[in-house]
């Protein structure tokens, strides 16, 4: 009988929400601020068979190891130092979801957006490409945390055993978390490289092979970590190495994230500025660590050679990709170009385009060479013996290296301009052209010399071979070295001049005017708030 039929029954006032309802409402409000992709991915992941099966298998494997480890490790389990062995067992179990499953699931998640035609629906929403990538990454973090939480009681259990300390356990968790996250980021970047079905299949095969190698490495490194790390605690080098590693990790992680977002973004979007700043910040973050090491090693030139080589490779690889960018700027991007002279001078290098990318990389390399030269000079003047002994040699190494990178990149850039102007796959063409150029200059010239002269020593045939020439010139001086010291800088200068001829229009891009419709829309969206009443009569 309803309350309408019974005149005695009256409608009850709605009861106030209980604690759970209030908590639910509050969580709902908080969830409003979360990345929509994270919310969606988490909802999907927690319902997927893949996650449930992996999670259950992980729990089962941990449980089995907890039961059988004492049996397998023998009767001394209770009093011998077996904690590291038990921890390593848990680490092996954990490594499967963290190194193999989470990164591959992230790759599939992004690749599936293309296959299911859902990526286009995301692309036309308000979500930015960066939000899409960070959302996928966030979902991977949630899964990593859940897997770690599932294993956490087992890891805590190992602390009760002999032969293991809390530092080692923390270090294992730290490396597992960051390792898995790094691999996930790489997997997401790979997923953005191609949208073609065949390429996706090839990329997924390559990724699986790569992840298995990563897992193999994790298995070996994990053993070192669980057995040796207790002795590393008091060593300064260990903390230095971890600080350096973390700095480089954060820098490249940000760079990969931005690159993945740029790979997903709409054609003509201004994603290059943040990418180029991130490229610079990686080097800037890396430099203080190397400087500290270099000073600690009394200005040892080996440190500087290693640093300059790594920075050279960093800028060369990134410049190869930048010279594959399209010089086209959409009107929308041109509207945001700086108008002042100082703004143009500072920010032109951050705009997309092969010419600006080439200039940006070379300028950065020159800055590193200049700072390196000044650093050695200062160190030598302050009596760092190693620096004063190697000053000339290091200066030659730095500047000759810059000249070679300028020549390789400059010639590659010219070839791209003339041969790959119209291709739809500019980036691929750029990588191929630079790759062939480098191969011809190094391996090719070595082979030519061997075939023509049979001479295995350095000759002037090797002038295009930067690696051999730089090491030869730095090792000592003779007539060939003198020729290299004259010819290579002149060739670099000529390459720069030839490039500046075609870069000109890219540097002189005029800002576009804002259309009336856009200005009106901006004004509509930014209506100033009504003035607050100043008195009760207003």
């Amino acid at each position, binding site marked *: 009988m309803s309350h309408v039929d019974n005149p005695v029954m009256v409608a009850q006032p709605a009861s106030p929400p209980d604690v759970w309802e209030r908590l639910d409402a509050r969580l709902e409000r908080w969830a409003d601020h979360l990345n929509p992709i994270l919310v969606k991915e988490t909802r999907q992941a927690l*319902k997927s068979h893949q996650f449930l099966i992996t999670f259950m298998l992980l729990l089962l494997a941990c449980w089995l190891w907890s039961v059988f480890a004492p049996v397998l490790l023998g009767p001394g389990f209770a009093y011998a130092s077996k904690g590291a062995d038990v921890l390593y067992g848990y680490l092996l179990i954990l490594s499967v979801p963290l190194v193999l499953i989470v990164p591959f699931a992230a790759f599939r998640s992004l690749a599936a957006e293309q296959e*299911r035609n859902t990526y*286009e*629906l995301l692309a036309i*929403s308000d*979500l930015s490409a960066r939000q899409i990538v960070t959302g996928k990454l966030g979902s991977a973090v949630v899964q990593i945390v859940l897997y770690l939480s599932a294993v956490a009681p087992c890891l805590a259990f190992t602390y009760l055993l002999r032969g293991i300390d809390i530092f080692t356990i923390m270090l294992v968790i730290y490396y597992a978390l960051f390792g898995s996250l790094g691999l996930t980021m790489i997997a997401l970047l790979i997923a953005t490289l191609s949208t073609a079905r065949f390429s996706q299949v090839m990329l997924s095969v390559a990724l699986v092979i790569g992840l298995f190698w990563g897992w193999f490495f994790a298995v070996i490194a994990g053993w070192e970590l669980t057995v040796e790390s207790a002795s590393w605690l008091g060593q300064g080098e260990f903390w230095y190495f971890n600080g350096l590693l973390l700095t480089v990790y954060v820098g490249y992680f940000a760079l990969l994230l931005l690159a993945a977002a740029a790979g997903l973004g*709409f054609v003509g979007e201004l994603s290059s500025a943040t990418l180029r700043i991130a490229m610079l910040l990686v080097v800037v973050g890396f430099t203080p660590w190397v400087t500290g090491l270099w000073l600690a090693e009394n200005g040892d030139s080996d440190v500087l050679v290693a640093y300059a080589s790594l920075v050279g490779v960093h800028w060369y690889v990134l410049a190869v990709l930048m010279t594959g960018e399209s010089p086209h700027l959409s*009107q929308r991007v041109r*509207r945001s170009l700086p108008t002042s002279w100082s703004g143009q001078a500072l920010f032109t290098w951050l705009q997309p385009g092969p010419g600006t990318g080439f200039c940006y990389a070379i300028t950065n390399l020159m800055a590193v060479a200049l700072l390196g030269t000044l650093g050695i000079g200062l160190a030598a003047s302050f009596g760092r013996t190693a620096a004063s002994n190697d000053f000339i040699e290091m200066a030659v190494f730095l500047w000759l290296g810059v000249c070679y990178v300028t020549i390789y990149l400059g010639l590659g850039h010219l070839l791209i301009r003339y041969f790959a102007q119209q291709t739809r796959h500019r980036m691929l063409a750029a990588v191929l052209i630079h790759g062939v150029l480098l191969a011809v200059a190094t391996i090719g010239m070595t082979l030519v010399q061997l075939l023509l002269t049979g001479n295995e020593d350095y000759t002037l045939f090797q002038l295009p071979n930067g690696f051999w020439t730089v090491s030869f010139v730095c090792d000592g001086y003779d007539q060939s070295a003198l020729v290299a010291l004259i010819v290579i800088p002149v060739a670099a200068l000529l390459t720069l001049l030839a490039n500046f001829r075609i870069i000109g229009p890219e540097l002189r891009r005029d800002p576009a005017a804002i*259309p009336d419709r856009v200005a009106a829309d901006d004004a509509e969206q930014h209506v100033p708030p009504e003035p607050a009443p100043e008195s009760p009569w207003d």
Partner: protein
Amino acid sequence: MIELDRLHRYFGDTKAVCDVSFAVAAGEVFGYIGPNGAGKTTSMRILATLDLPSTGDARVDGFSVVDDPDRVRRRLGFMPDGFGTYPHMNVWEYLDFFARSYGLRGQERGRAVARVMEFTLLGSLRNKAIDALSKGMKQRLCLGRALIHDPGVLVLDEPAAGLDPRARIELREMISHLAAAGKAVLVSSHILTELAEMCHTVGILEQGRLLAVGPVEAIRKQLQPEAAVRLEVLGDPRPVADWLEGRDDVGQVQVVERCLRFQHQGNRQAEAELLRAMIEQGFAVVEFSPDRQSLEDVFLQVTEGRVQ
């Protein structure tokens, strides 16, 4: 609301879209007709900011898809040919996700999802898994997704493909409601009778070129300036045909079984007089009706051999 201005899109040597221009006003349903590979989807993808034109431009509410894709996206709902749905998700979660993706927060999001579910009649399927939905229901869900941010412009690529007659009728009604609410709707379909009933204007596309554009009636008149009449008589139609051929205001008399088809010059009054004359002649006329071309006839006539 929608303007295509000399739009071109080339893929290598293939001209997918070639010099296409038309406009769709608010409250108008524009039917985009063409065979497979005519360039409909390509031009719709350009409008949806998923591709860039080789030359020319398209504007939505005055904003260029090339220069201001973000502003276009906020004003446009796009329903692609494929469904674009996610596994392990129910109807409410799907709509809630896209509402979040369009920046809707809190109660505003809840209201938007409820409004769309009510409009697409998906309320009773709120917790149903998307994978378990029928094709018609999935199509409604995708329309709901395109409407979640209440856009002023809708671009629907083959929304009626594969739907049963009932689902098609429902979809047609929904599109008519949307147009009545002031939205500009661009819809492509292979089912021309479907489009004829719901579109105010059509554009006929073949091999990337727009061959005809305008209201169906106007195109029909352009193709068929004289009124065609269909006539059915009892008995042998040949004497009627002979009699008609003797008149100055009648031409192209064709006998098809027991029926006749002919062109008549004159207005409706003249048609009435012609009918009276036939009856006075003693012909047993059982049907006398204007023989209008269907949209399919118009389409076939427009596209036949015009573009090589």
